[in-house]
């Protein structure tokens, strides 16, 4: 099977970014992958601007110490409840604003990598200020050095709180932080002993944060005795432990493997993994170089690595919005979709992050995924009834009314949209009528499976070229194939 240049470019855009956007989808026939990769790198070169929803810790969750002291217990509890509610609302804003970046930002590579790291350094605390700061650490370092990011994340109040390191004190250690740093953030299970965890936990004693949300090292809580970790002995502190973990080639293997499963293929090719992880280690954990190794390799563009990945809910939503520029009736409806599809940003299922792959799919989530394009387009006025005339039970209702009715649980919550079709129609301006459907399918689908075009045509409007393109796109997005990239 010949893999077209367009398919390869779209492959790169779906994996390294959130899919092709309307404005540049037409140019993907000609561009080379090396050129496209260079463009992706260049447009993500700038430092990101912080997405800010909470100004300071008081906005986030905690009130100042002085305020707290003045209040009696009952008002304190009431205040606490209000703060938590405010924090949850701020997290919703943070979610929508970040999703907006994934859709619209030109720094596609950076935002996509940030989503990956957001799942890798999974953290679930309701303090919106903490979450905002952690996200900024991740977006800033997403293409930088893994070791730097690991150290900054490990010192973030978000992670210290989530993994209970505030409770990790000399003589009374809490091992949660040390365990997860080794098991999930660096080496992976089976590469260290329980004793290594115990000793590392002692080295992390005293790492915490203050009421201003800043990292503090509490010397009096730190265990200054000698520790032995992964065969090395010394009076280690937390930074030393992280350096010891980064010294282990296994950390490079573990991170590369996770990245490979996420961006290339759930079935890992051992030869590729070995080559990539060795270079990642030799390049001192330079993330950009690792990505370059992947995205400029020939094997990345072979059939077995294309169109076999199940899009995560966030990738699906962002991907639709990149191809179909649109304005939702209510932006908050995106949270509803995240919830029913099982991926709410800032609410990973646990510290191990979203497992991905097939776990995204069950009966309920698949049917909602198929419904989403229909919901978005519910208020469109196109009609395909002419080809669908045995659907008589709907009586006198227009198709538009039927679509709204059928999808009313979502439409009533603001999930339908005004779609800006002009740039979408323009993608196909040079395509002849007889090739049009094939071209639209080739632009939308990465999957090796092909949908019967005769069958599809029954569900596509033929009254105008515009309506043909619109209905073809909505219908193609309503397929299992569109769930893959």
């Amino acid at each position, binding site marked *: 099977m010949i893999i077209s240049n367009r398919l390869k470019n779209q492959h790169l855009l779906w994996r390294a970014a959130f899919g092709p956007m309307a404005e540049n989808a037409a140019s993907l026939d000609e561009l080379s992958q090396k050129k496209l990769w260079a463009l992706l790198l260049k447009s993500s070169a700038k430092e990101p601007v912080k997405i800010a929803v909470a100004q300071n810790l008081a906005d986030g969750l905690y009130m100042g110490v002085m305020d707290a002291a003045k209040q009696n217990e009952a008002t304190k509890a009431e205040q606490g409840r209000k703060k938590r509610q405010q924090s949850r609302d701020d997290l919703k804003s943070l979610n929508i604003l970040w999703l907006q970046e994934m859709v619209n930002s030109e720094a596609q590579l950076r935002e996509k990598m940030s989503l990956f790291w957001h799942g890798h350094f999974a953290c679930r605390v309701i303090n919106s200020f903490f979450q905002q700061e952690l996200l900024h650490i991740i977006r800033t370092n997403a293409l930088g050095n893994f070791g730097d990011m690991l150290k900054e994340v490990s010192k973030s109040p978000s992670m210290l709180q989530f993994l209970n390191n505030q409770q990790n004190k000399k003589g009374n250690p809490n091992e949660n932080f040390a365990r997860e740093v080794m098991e999930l953030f660096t080496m992976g299970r089976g590469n260290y002993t329980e004793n290594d965890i115990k000793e590392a936990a002692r080295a992390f004693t005293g790492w915490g944060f203050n009421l201003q949300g800043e990292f503090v090292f509490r010397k009096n809580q730190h265990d200054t005795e000698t520790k032995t970790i992964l065969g090395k002995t010394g009076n280690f502190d937390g930074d030393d432990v992280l350096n010891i973990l980064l010294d282990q080639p296994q950390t490079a293997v573990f991170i590369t493997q996770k990245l490979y499963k996420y961006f290339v293929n759930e079935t890992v090719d051992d030869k590729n993994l070995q080559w990539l992880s060795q270079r990642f280690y030799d390049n001192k954990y330079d993330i950009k170089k690792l990505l370059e190794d992947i995205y400029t390799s020939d094997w990345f563009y072979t059939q077995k690595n294309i169109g076999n990945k199940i899009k995560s809910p966030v990738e699906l939503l962002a991907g639709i919005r990149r191809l179909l520029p649109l304005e939702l009736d209510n932006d908050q409806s995106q949270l509803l979709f995240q919830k029913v599809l099982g991926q709410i940003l800032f609410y990973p299922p646990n510290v191990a992050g979203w497992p991905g792959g097939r776990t995204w799919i069950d*009966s309920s989530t698949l049917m909602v995924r198929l419904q989403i394009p229909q919901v978005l387009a519910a208020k469109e006025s196109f009609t395909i009834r002419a080809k669908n005339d045995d659907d008589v039970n709907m009586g006198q209702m227009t198709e538009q009314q039927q679509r709204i009715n059928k999808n009313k649980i979502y439409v009533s919550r603001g999930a339908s949209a005004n779609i800006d079709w002009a740039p979408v129609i323009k993608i196909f301006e040079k395509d002849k009528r007889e090739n049009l459907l094939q071209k639209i399918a080739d632009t939308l689908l990465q999957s090796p499976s092909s949908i019967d075009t005769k069958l599809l045509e029954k569900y596509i409007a033929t009254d105008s070229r515009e309506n043909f393109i619109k209905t073809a796109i909505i219908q193609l997005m309503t397929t*299992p194939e569109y769930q893959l990239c």
Partner: protein
Amino acid sequence: MIIKRKEFLQIGSLATASVMLPKFLQAFEKKNMVPPGNKVVVVIQFSGGNDGLNTVIPISNDIYYKSRPKLGITKEKALGLTGDVGLNPALEAFKGFYDDGSLAILNSVGYPNPDRSHFRSMDIWHSASASNEYLYTGWLGRYLDAQCKGCDKPTQALEIDDILSLALKGNEKNGLAFTDPRRLYSSSNERFYKEINASHQSSGESVDYLYKTMSETLSSADYIFKQSKLNPSTGIYPNTDLGKNLKTISSLILSDINTKVYYVSLGSFDTHVNQEAQQKRLFTELNDAVKAFTTDLKKNNRFDDVLMMTFSEFGRRVSQNASNGTDHGTANNMFFISGGLKQKGVLNDMPDLSDLNDGDLKHKVDFKNVYATVLNKWLGSDDKTILGKQYDYLKFI
């Protein structure tokens, strides 16, 4: 007449199901009917961490009243079961179940190294994992894996909700979540879905997996809807979410559906503030819905075949907090309701309030022993494979 109609519907349902199945899957389809007398489990989840000590109340324990000067429920108000044990006043029907021998109470259920985070502890209960182990499948999902090898419709485990819980996710099979059989049917009954499904040709693992799930969903939706109309419950249920959900479950239990496990949730029990009113409201909803459900099952002679079990991700601290509420705790009690219990009443000692772990109850029974018991003795399945380990069985069923 009724029998004829039933037969017609079944044949109808199987016929459409095979038409809808893509060719590459048709070989797997087989008839999977369940004989009457079929044992069924209904899991009722109390989301948010229900306060067990104000549910099953230690009415003769001074420590309880000292720890809860405002929140403690007096001996007079509690519905006395024994001299030492009372039920929350809102659970009047449960007192009736106790009196007629269809209620069992298991105290101090939990797990080692308890986690006080809602979602983490719920994950542990759903996946039946150890507290430092992350599993992405649930105990009922793995039951489904074992039960539904090669079957075309994973309807052995159903959740009445919009979102499928981790508990019902398996490695190979997932349970199905819906709130209303009619809505499930109408959302999947799209000619487009059926046609692309029928014309799909095997072309790669991921895409085949999606089509397989779609195919199972379409045939399950069809099957569930038809079954729900076969012999719909005529019982009178309260107009609450739980009432409606239990009525849906009843209509399915009274049909010929092959479902063995139903799953519903009630909440939120996260009573940090003003606990009394919130718990009362939820327990009233629970009490009235379960009462109607039980009456319905008895009338149809199915009460002996149905086991209801309740659980929550954790109990709450022994001492009340400063806002007339309670904070996250550890071990908790579970209710079992059925006409087919072998042991009834209060199954074990009330929690020992003088032996606490940092203000929290110590667990005496691992919830995985309960799962093993239900899986093995009620559902007749291989609990060791499903739970990954052999747990001792309890004797209440």
